[in-house]
């Protein structure tokens, strides 16, 4: 059912954990579906210098969190925000159609974390002006 890549990231997820002095924290999820994702970011200049996550959810949600953090780490905020749910799916060598919704959470969690960072520091991030975590999507 899942690609080898998904299983690798599910069994041995990268960047699991919390960041004590995180610059931004984002938490998204939907109690109905069950998957909940929390992301911690550290910002250095305009670079996402560190990122960690904790996820409650299915294999698809856990693998998506893992690969998303790999993709984001070290990128500029702008480049990282340009990453989409489709990039996450592609990097996992695909997800079964019914599981794609579980990967949306990774993109949402990261955006929430950046928004938290921006709000705390009074920074205007044009890409996030209209961002509302899409609670019902998942």
């Amino acid at each position, binding site marked *: 059912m899942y690609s080898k890549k998904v299983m690798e990231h599910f069994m041995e997820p990268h960047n699991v954990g919390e960041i004590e002095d995180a610059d931004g924290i984002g938490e998204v999820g939907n109690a109905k579906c069950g998957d909940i994702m929390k992301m911690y970011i550290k910002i250095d200049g305009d670079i996402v210098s560190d990122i960690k996550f904790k996820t*409650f959810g299915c294999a698809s949600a856990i693998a998506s969190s893992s690969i998303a953090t790999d993709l984001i780490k070290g990128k500029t905020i702008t480049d990282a925000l340009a990453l989409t749910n489709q990039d996450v799916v592609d990097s996992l060598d695909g997800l079964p159609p019914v599981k794609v919704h579980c990967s949306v959470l990774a993109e949402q969690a990261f955006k929430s974390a950046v928004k938290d960072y921006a709000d705390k520091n009074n920074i205007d991030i044009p890409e996030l002006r209209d961002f509302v975590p899409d609670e019902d999507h998942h």
Partner: protein
Amino acid sequence: MNKNIYFDNAATTFLDDAVYEAMKPYFEGHFGNPSSIYQYCQTAKQGITEAREQVAAGINASAGEIYFTSGGSESDNWAIIGTAFAKRSKGNHLITTKIEHHAVLHTIEYLEKKHGFTATYLDVDQEGLVNPEDLKKALTPETILVSVMLANNEIGTIQPVADLVQITKEYDPKIYFHTDAVQALGTIPLDVQALGVDLLTITAHKAYGPKGVGALYIKKGVVIDNLIHGGGQEKGKRAGTENVAGIVGFGKAAELFTADVVERNLKIKELRDHLINRATAEIEGIVINGSLEHRLPGNSNFSVKRIEGEALILSLDHYGIAASSGSACTSGSLDPSHVLLAIGLDHGTAHGSLRVSLGKDNTKEEIDFFIDKLILIAQKLRAISPL
């Protein structure tokens, strides 16, 4: 270490060797059509006759009351649709429960949506049991069928079917009573006389027989419409050239696995209790769903707090352990198990459910290996979780 441990016997069982041996000749030499009259085909016919007797003996029916079908789903459809259409001049009301298999639920929903029937779906308590008083209240002069499963496929709850039949018949003996006994064949003694039902569904593949073959017991004197129209097989009640090898295998399985059903399942129950005891003692936040008393011997169903079901099943699979979950993420839809919701679990808890259903060849070593791995998996997944 990667083992091959099968703990999903409620989904399907493996084909027993002796059953396979009994079927083989019907794939090799005995390919005749049982309806033909030349000698060649008499063996096929004989095989079916013998199987009908074996299945009948397994549920204390007479051979004339057994009609072979393509499995549990067809038998459920036939019993319900066949009754509804045969009795529509008497009334249009059907009664069932909220925890039936989809083969029953979706059939009744179809009759409601497309054919103008009405239905009452009885609640169950937190152990999954129907309250006989609720059935009493639900019966109306319009009621033509009551369908209550004997044993549930997810939580293993065994309903007081004989009592429910009595209540129904006291209200109106003309109301038919159907029970889905798919999970009961080979796991608990099955006796249509003692139950008093009019219609009973069984399938071969949950009792070490082949897939794609089942039966509907239709009590002598009970009349329902046909579902599959065509040739005159099964005394003109179920058309279609018989699945001869499958039917022979079903007969053999019924003979083998209803004979020592109590003794064999006592051992399975001991193992199951060992599993429940270790799981609840050694893993924090684990609770057993359903009834401990009125329960199939091989069934266990847990809620594991702060663990999502699909992640759990895949982690177990990594160690070669096959089990199942009521999680939505395993079913392809977003709704968790209707059975777990009906016994009062919230969505989140229903997502973290784990069904471990034991069969005749499972061992204590397998259970201990499973619990050891479950402890590790629970630790690992909880460490990843923000909850």
